[in-house]
């Protein structure tokens, strides 16, 4: 099949690159490490029979907390007839971003705290997040990336719009556990989609999503607590 060169600033390359962002967050993200897409340098697309559409990208991602940029090359395959994607990526010096100390400190702090954490509306209506709530916002973005990775197609562009609610839960093991209600924004449909996520995290294990559930479209919602 013919390979077509893509304009890196146009939407096909940008949407595929966004999927790479989501993938990197699921693999490497933490309360102190969240990736955003900074730039696409070049892209190619190829229609592969029986498989789907394959994008090859040369891109720059940015770790959003320390503003470190990392150059990556990636392949994204959108499977034909499915809402799924496969990503392979290799990045220069991804491991140079060392957040071990902050993660350990946060983990210990959450472990010894007597009261379980909870927060809502991160950010608030004015875009504000209390500094000690930021790690929970970051964790929400990373957890959301699992959903956004699963849900992405050539016709979507996902970002997490807001953490509506997060509550810490008890665990019997080393993991910290959280119940998240997140709002995702898809740029193409302009819709806000509600998801409930059961999330665990520890520095050695990273972020994992045990359960994810899409909530019904609540159009003239007055209260979020009714959606379940």
């Amino acid at each position, binding site marked *: 099949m013919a390979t077509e060169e893509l304009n890196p600033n*146009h939407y096909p390359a940008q949407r595929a690159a966004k999927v790479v962002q989501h993938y990197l967050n699921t693999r490497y993200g933490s309360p102190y490490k969240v990736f955003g*897409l900074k730039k696409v340098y070049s892209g190619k697309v190829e229609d592969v029979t029986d498989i789907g559409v394959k994008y090859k990208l040369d891109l720059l991602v940015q770790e959003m907390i320390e503003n470190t940029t990392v150059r990556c090359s990636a392949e994204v395959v959108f499977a034909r007839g499915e809402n799924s994607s496969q990503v392979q990526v290799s990045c220069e010096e991804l491991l140079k971003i060392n957040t071990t100390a902050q993660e350990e400190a946060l983990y210990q702090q959450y472990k010894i705290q007597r009261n379980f954490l909870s927060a809502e509306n991160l950010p608030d209506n004015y875009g504000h997040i209390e500094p000690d709530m930021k790690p929970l916002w970051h964790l929400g973005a990373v957890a959301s990336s699992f959903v956004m990775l699963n849900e992405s197609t050539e016709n979507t562009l996902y970002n997490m719009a807001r953490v509506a609610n997060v509550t810490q839960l008890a665990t019997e093991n080393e993991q910290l556990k959280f119940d998240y209600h997140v709002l995702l924004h898809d740029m193409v449909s302009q819709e806000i989609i509600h998801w409930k996520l059961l999330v665990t995290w520890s520095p050695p294990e990273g972020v994992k999503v045990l359960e994810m559930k899409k909530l019904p479209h609540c159009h003239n919602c007055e209260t979020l607590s009714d959606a379940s």
Partner: protein
Amino acid sequence: MTLLNIVGLGLVVLLSVGGAATVERAEYDYYKYHPMSEISEWMVKIANDHRDVVTRVEYGKTYELRTISLLKIGLKTGAKKKGVWVDCGIHAREWIAPAFCQYFVRQILQTYKTDPKMNEMMKNMDFYITPVLNMDGYIHSWEGPTTRLWRKNMSPGPDGCNCTGTDLNRNFDANWGTIGISLDCCSNIFCGRKPASEPEAQAVTFFVGSRKDDILCFLTIHSHGQLLLIPYGHPNFTAPNYDELMSVGLAAAEAIKSVHGMNYTVGTSPAVLYANSGSSRDWAKLQGIPYTYTFELRDKGEYGFLLPENQIQPACEEAYSGALHIITYAHDKTFNGATTSAAATLVTALLAAAAVASNTLM
């Protein structure tokens, strides 16, 4: 108490309230988000404080019967003037857009007396600025966290529909209902029951439509994405001055980048973002307005619609730089061309006369 005492007390209270009001009158904070009531008061105040150059014009009603108004800003020359249109807040949740319109007004009012270029532009053109077009939607988005991400206006869905609102930026009469829309009234890109069915879209259509031969520039401000979008939203249609729109747009993006280093991508919606129809920008282009752009302001998805207040200033500064580039280009193409050629003719005539005179003398 005696009647005199009560009246006396009343007077004292009135005086102290008046005094307090004068002392308390704070500068308007352009770097905070303001609810509709404050924006409306600000518009009245701006018009009052700058009566020589500003008029507040009421030009339509929202579905919930609020009055839509704009600030018309320009030096009053008595002549028929060209115009620049800027609208903000078509989409309720894009709070940075109304913030930009207020900042824009403040900037031109602050600079026109001392900046000769701005002074010239205010002489030759009137600026028509609508800080919040979708007032009902904007007010709804201020009700609380559950409504903060509202997009559409507040008109009821068609019969049998449970959902509220039409996407005003799909409702204009420009390839209406063809692409990038939904006919599902619950969708956030529901285009309405027919072209310009919505009173907010009608208000713009009528006001701009009746002045279309004089409007040079139509800028519609949105968020987010860091994009400058040119017509048309439909992939099968190309604007006659596409090349010019691109080059002016790219120069505007350079101007934006020079302020705080932010990259804005320039192109048609179908190339850069997604195909769509019924946008205000496309409608304006179809009227023959030469320079029509959609601005998608900060950011690229980190905060999205919930842009922190500490980014209002840099976002507005960079966007202003871009908007000013486009406006200045549109102005200079229309006005300085004539001035230059008139001056050139005069110089040539003088030189010719001088040559004749010196020949005669010789």
